[in-house]
């Protein structure tokens, strides 16, 4: 099976060379000067998936200097073939939305405001709360004396916004803690 162009070529490259434009008699000076003045922006195209309904339309994200500059439906994905609905088409403004939560926020008991916190502080504080709640409320055995290992007083809800990999880890973590009140969008 021939799978590569090299298999039927004697030499690689762009094919047989032609005479140059200058040899043909063109003055390339102005063209090169024109080209040198161009303000060319480089961007890459990244395949992603629309985060809304589960048709999972593919999206090509255009990224320039690490910033999202445009999104379009992926014409190669056989299901959406480049088409997007109004929400999918609004992906750019949705992702770049200034209203988004950008920093871990904390609201102390009885407080009337949010405060910014570091990730380190927030995760440590949550870890303390989880351990404290678990140590205090862990149900080792039920009324019948059966071993049940349940942490009934802590719950986990969500989310179908997670990737499969994130779902798998979340399930594993919650079962390890003994969480039984676990649910997400599939039930509502």
């Amino acid at each position, binding site marked *: *099976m*021939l*799978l590569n*162009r090299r298999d*039927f*070529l*004697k*030499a*690689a*490259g*762009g*094919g*047989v*060379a*032609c*005479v*140059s*434009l200058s*040899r*043909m*008699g*063109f*003055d*390339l000076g*102005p*063209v*090169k000067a*024109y*080209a*040198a003045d*161009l*303000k*060319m*922006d*480089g*961007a*890459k*195209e*990244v*395949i992603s998936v629309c985060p809304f309904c589960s048709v999972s339309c593919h999206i*090509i994200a255009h990224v320039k200097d690490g910033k999202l500059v445009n999104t*379009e*439906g*992926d*014409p*190669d994905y056989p299901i*959406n*073939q*480049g*088409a*997007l*609905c109004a929400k999918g088409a609004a992906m750019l403004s949705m992702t770049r939305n200034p209203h988004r939560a950008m920093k871990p926020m904390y609201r102390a008991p009885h407080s009337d405001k949010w405060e910014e916190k570091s990730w380190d502080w927030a995760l440590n504080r949550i870890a303390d709360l989880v351990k404290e709640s678990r140590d205090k409320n862990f149900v080792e055995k039920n009324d019948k004396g059966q071993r049940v290992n349940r942490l009934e007083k802590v719950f986990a809800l969500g989310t179908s916004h997670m990737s499969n990999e994130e779902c798998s880890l979340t399930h594993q973590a919650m079962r390890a803690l003994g969480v039984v009140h676990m649910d997400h969008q599939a039930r509502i």
Partner: protein
Amino acid sequence: MPVLNGLGDCEQHINDAVESFAGKRPVLEPMLRAFGNILREKSRLAAQLAAGKPYDLAVDPSRLSRGVPLLAGVSLEPLQEQLNVSFNAMLNVLRKTFSDLDEELSRLEICYRERKLDFVNLSRAYLETDPRVLSETARSLMVSEGVLGMVVGVLLAPVLEVVALSYAEQVHQARWLKGFCPVCGSMPSISYLGESGEQASEFLTGGGGQKYLHCSMCGCEWRTKRNMCPACENEDKDRRVYFQTEDDPAERIDVCTECGAYLPCMDFRESVLRPPLEIAAVGMVHLDAWACEKGYHPLANTLWNQVR
């Protein structure tokens, strides 16, 4: 299914595109006019050949599904007559257009009359990029390799355009996904992003953007993936970049940083104009100049992109 560009390009269509690009980018006007002449003649000739005697080539379309181009290894012997016709017509227009090359072109004409030109063999060597055959022939005929290469390429193109046309349906059915041409095995000279989905349904025809490659030799057009370099098949998002200016979102140049190849691309979703693709490629030669300056090389050598 894409429409084959070559044969549909009537004279008016080519003229309009030349005018429109020349108006937009006067710096390219001399090239647009020169290559416009050649492309017009090529188009006329292809139409003439298509209307003439049917080709008798040993082509096996079932090879497409195995990733083998139709003409790979196929003898071009039966095309002797068409190649002769093409040589005469194309040499004439080349001579008219490029007076700087006249000396070498007229020498080739003499060689032809003296039956020193074996077009079948040269065409085969051209398609297979066999530098030995071409350089030896050039030496023996006392012309430069560049001019010989140019002439062989130019005379072969209209002849093979007819092949591409007659197998367009098979190529479409085969869903050819390679970066090289399913008909003649050459690399593309330009690509474009299409307007709407292939399977236009009543509802949500799609934003378009499907990528088609246009063969630098036979003008065959085939669909490819957006996220693949046609030269090295690299799909890494971080090693493919496209460049464009803010003013011209319909024109871009796709670069693979893995293998260093570039390919111009027209985005027909942005553009009202539908120029013949080869005129569009000439109208974007400034991008070739830019890319070469940056150290990239074209996917296919064409008549108009040798900017060095």
